[in-house]
């Protein structure tokens, strides 16, 4: 209380001064009056009053001290003095503040992402005890499991408290404005209980509600409840229609809930799996589980592997060659972002480091110039502690200003970076919703700010203690300490160049990877391709599906600007190349091994429309319909893996013993079905006409920009049948640009590139500063050299050599660090080696040119010095 009052009094110090003065005077006057009343003369009365009172001015000061907190007053005067100092040297202050704010902004903004993705736990109870389950096949570790496998896993495992399945899909919702495509997920009854999430309204699914006989029920996401039903409480019990099937709404999920694998799901329905024993081969589900207390994911993994082996033995036709994968749920959700975020965080920290080093260098130069001031102040009676306090105040002021500007910039940067993420990717990353300046981020920001303040105040204080303060009065002294500090300044610049080189090499490697990725051969011509995802109302008759696709092809083909059209069940370049199957090769004994391949159903004109390259054999023909023998085209990876050294043409395969044989009639060059940076997988294509479906893509090659054609294609489809749901419209090039792998590579390349450019700039400015400072310190020496007959060119060389020496040291250290850094990010590179000689050469060249340019200016100034004037400088 009283402290606060005393602090407030700081601001009204002058008023207080007057008041105290008045009060003391009135006391003296009253005493004088009384003295006169007792008969003293005016003069006597006055002297007596003063005598009784004691030391007037000391009383005044003591009284003031009682009213005002003087330590604070000192600090306040330091702040004002510091402010004046900074004002006097505005360019220094602004450069220091901006450079620091830059480093601050970068690291805090990137940390906000790291926090949202890697640190903040998922919004479930005890999320670290949750795991994701997959079936593994010879193609990879993360594949769907079938409903019957899920039931067996659930029954037989000994390591999970609960194990639940889910399936994410888009469905058509009946609304007053016609059918709308919405995200949905079907989950087993205990799904939300396993996550530890309870509905905010209504109830959770009950046990047994996920059996085929149970009534169909749905739980809404909070967003769906608010946006589609206006947050009405009486939504419970209401009926909605998904794909024409009525569901009763029984609950609403909490607002903060999200589940990234089904991020866009607005409607959560109870899963109604079929227990038909022949359905075991239909692998279409994902699963999560909660570990029992004390059970590790590894134990669970071996338990599941055992169960999967038993199932494979029991049902070789369906589960042969399959095992189980158990990974932490967080790993599944954010695992692919971890390396890239850590990379960016390291980049940001390096930038922060370089910024701090840079400003430290500036402070050094400045403290050198302030030696005189410090010496004068200390000669005038300022205590050492007082000088230190002054310097610390200035450092803290700089750091505080930089932190404030940096925090504002970080906020803007976070918003900007979020805007740069494509919308469809953002939807898949719901955990980014919590992004912003939250408690964690503010704490880290405060820590960074404090560290900067510490560095900025420590630097000149150390300088103060090393330099003999009083000797500073003899300004001319080029003492030994000056050289020490100049050397430290140069070392700092070498460190900056080294850091800049690491960032430049990193950016170069990532940039080259990104270029390689965009130019990877995907096996088709992606330019001028329009893609529409369609789903017709479910029919049971295959002829209807075929008739519909023919109608769509015909009408779309007639549109102006459309050169050719095709149908396919799946389109290339997916984040995950799903849709795989087990198969056997006719006439080849299996011996327990299981062949796995992606399978794709494509229309007759598909390969010619996407302009794939046929290696051998033929494409499908119109005549390859359901009435003809089954045929397939395989990709080269398929041919190489399953028919090594042999001709795949004319060979027969089949799904299983019960299905018809399929003749391989063609071999096509590999088309990237999965992510751009993924390995090629074996694929076999079968004619759409022999295996049609009601969900397919329309692919159109266009003469001009496919974006313009997309709209007319969309209207054409709706004219054919308004009940056809168009669930996606995009161009092939957009699709490539928007895949996760492209995006991750692009953002890494751009952000690290940005860091690198800033680092280079800071490094160059730092180098310029050190060399310019050295020239100013060596003016006299240069004068002497000139007087002794040194040529201007040799003076020029003298200074340039200083820059060269720093460059060599920086590049040598930087090369070693870059090799280490390149090796660390090896996994993020695509088609690029960590020791890419070309990039190293370019980076060293860039550094050399820019450092030489930076030293040229001071070198020229040194060379053009007038020796007479130079000798006169003190």
């Amino acid at each position, binding site marked *: 209380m009283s402290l606060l009052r005393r602090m407030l009094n700081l601001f009204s110090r002058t008023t207080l001064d007057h008041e*105290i003065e008045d009060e003391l005077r009135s*006391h003296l006057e009253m005493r004088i009056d009384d003295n006169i009343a007792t008969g003293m003369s005016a003069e006597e009365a006055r002297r007596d009053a003063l005598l009784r009172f004691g030391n007037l001015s000391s009383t005044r000061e003591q009284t003031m001290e009682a*009213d005002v907190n003087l330590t604070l007053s000192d600090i306040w005067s330091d702040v004002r003095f510091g402010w004046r100092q900074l004002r006097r040297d505005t360019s220094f202050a602004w450069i220091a503040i901006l450079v620091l704010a830059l480093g601050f902004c970068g690291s805090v903004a990137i940390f906000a992402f790291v926090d949202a993705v890697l640190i903040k736990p998922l919004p479930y109870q005890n999320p670290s005890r949750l795991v994701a389950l997959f079936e593994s096949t010879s193609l990879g570790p993360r594949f769907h499991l079938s409903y019957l496998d899920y039931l067996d896993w659930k029954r037989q495992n000994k390591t999970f408290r609960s194990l639940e399945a889910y399936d994410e899909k888009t469905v058509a919702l009946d609304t007053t404005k016609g059918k709308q495509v919405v995200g949905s997920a079907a989950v087993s009854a205990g799904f939300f209980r396993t996550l530890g999430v309870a509905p905010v309204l209504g109830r959770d699914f009950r046990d047994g509600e996920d059996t085929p006989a149970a009534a169909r029920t749905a739980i809404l996401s909070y967003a769906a409840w608010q946006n589609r039903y206006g947050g009405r409480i009486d939504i419970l019990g209401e009926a909605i229609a998904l794909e024409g099937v009525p569901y009763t709404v029984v609950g609403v999920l909490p607002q903060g809930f999200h589940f990234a694998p089904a991020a866009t799901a607005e409607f959560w329905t109870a899963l109604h799996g079929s227990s038909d024993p022949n359905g075991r081969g239909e692998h279409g589900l994902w699963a999560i589980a909660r570990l029992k207390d004390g059970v590790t994911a590894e134990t669970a993994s071996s338990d599941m592997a055992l169960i999967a082996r038993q199932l494979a033995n029991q049902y070789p036709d369906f589960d042969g060659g399959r095992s189980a994968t158990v990974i932490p749920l967080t790993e599944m959700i954010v695992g692919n972002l971890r390396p890239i975020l850590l990379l960016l965080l390291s980049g940001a920290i390096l930038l922060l480091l370089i910024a701090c080093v840079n400003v430290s260098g500036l402070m050094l130069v400045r403290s050198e110039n302030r030696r005189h001031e410090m010496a004068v102040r200390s000669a005038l009676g300022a205590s050492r502690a007082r000088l230190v306090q002054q310097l610390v105040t200035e450092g803290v002021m700089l750091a505080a200003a930089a932190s404030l500007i940096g925090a504002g910039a970080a906020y803007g940067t976070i918003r900007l970076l979020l805007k740069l993420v494509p919308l469809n990717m953002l939807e898949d990353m719901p955990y980014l919703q919590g992004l912003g300046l939250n408690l964690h981020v503010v704490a880290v920001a405060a820590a960074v700010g404090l560290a900067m303040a510490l560095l900025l105040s420590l630097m000149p204080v150390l300088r103060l203690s090393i330099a003999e303060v009083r000797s500073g009065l003899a300004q001319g002294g080029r003492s030994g300490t000056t050289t020490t500090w100049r050397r430290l300044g140069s070392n700092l610049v070498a460190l900056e160049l080294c850091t800049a080189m690491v960032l430049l090499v990193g950016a170069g490697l990532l940039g080259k990877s990104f270029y390689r990725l965009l130019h990877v051969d995907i096996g088709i011509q992606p330019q001028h391709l329009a893609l529409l995802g369609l789903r017709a109302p479910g029919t049971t008759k295959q002829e209807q599906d075929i008739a519909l696709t023919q109608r769509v092809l015909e009408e779309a083909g007639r549109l102006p600007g459309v050169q050719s059209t095709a149908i396919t069940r799946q389109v290339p370049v997916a984040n995950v190349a799903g849709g795989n199957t087990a198969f056997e090769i006719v006439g080849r004994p299996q011996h327990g091994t299981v062949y796995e391949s992606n399978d794709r159903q494509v229309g007759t004109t598909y390969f010619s429309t996407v302009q794939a390259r046929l290696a051998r054999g033929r494409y499908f023909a119109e005549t390859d319909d359901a009435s003809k023998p089954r045929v397939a085209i395989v990709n080269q990876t398929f041919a190489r893996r399953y028919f090594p050294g042999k001709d795949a043409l004319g060979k027969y395969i089949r799904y299983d013993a019960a299905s018809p044989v399929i003749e391989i009639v063609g071999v096509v060059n590999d088309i990237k079905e999965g992510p751009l940076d993924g390995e090629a997988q074996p694929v076999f294509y079968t004619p759409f006409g022999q295996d049609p479906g009601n969900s397919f893509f329309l692919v159109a090659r266009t003469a001009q920009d496919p974006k313009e054609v997309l709209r007319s294609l969309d209207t054409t489809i709706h004219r054919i049948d308004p009940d056809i749901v168009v669930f996606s419209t995009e161009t092939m090039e957009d699709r490539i640009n928007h895949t996760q792998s492209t995006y991750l590579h692009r953002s890494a390349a751009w952000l690290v590139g940005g860091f690198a450019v800033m680092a280079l700039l800071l490094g160059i400015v730092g180098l310029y500063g050190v060399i310019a400072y050295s020239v100013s310190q060596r003016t006299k020496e240069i004068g002497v050299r000139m007087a002794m007959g040194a040529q201007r060119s040799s003076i020029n060389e003298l200074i340039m050599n200083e820059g060269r020496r720093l460059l060599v040291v920086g590049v040598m250290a930087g090369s070693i660090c870059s090799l280490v850094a390149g090796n660390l990010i090896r996994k993020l590179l695509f088609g690029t080696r960590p020791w890419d000689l070309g990039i190293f050469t370019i980076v060293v060249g860039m550094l050399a040119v820019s450092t030489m340019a930076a030293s040229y200016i001071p070198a020229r100034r040194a060379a053009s010095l007038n020796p007479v004037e130079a000798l006169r400088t003190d």
Partner: protein
Amino acid sequence: MAKNDLQGTLDLLVMKTLLQVGELHGYGIVLHIQRVSGDLLRIEEGSLYPALHRMEQQGWITANWALTETNRRAKYYKLTPEGRKRLEEDEKNFEHLVKGVRAVLRYA
């Protein structure tokens, strides 16, 4: 043990004076203490003011400017409820102190 420093005695005297008289200015406080103590206690006039201001900052007394009987402007001090509580404590402490000191002096 109660806090019983002799320095606090000035505070005690000032607050007791204000309790007995009500509002009073610094000079009046000096005169009052001198008169009531039968000239035994003479306050160092200069040292009174820092004490008054400190007590004001502590919130034990408040002050405002007013005119004296002789039409001079003076700063009048008044005890606050908080100061009243403080006075009670100080009085108790002082009694303890006096008792303790007396006990030591009488020890034979």
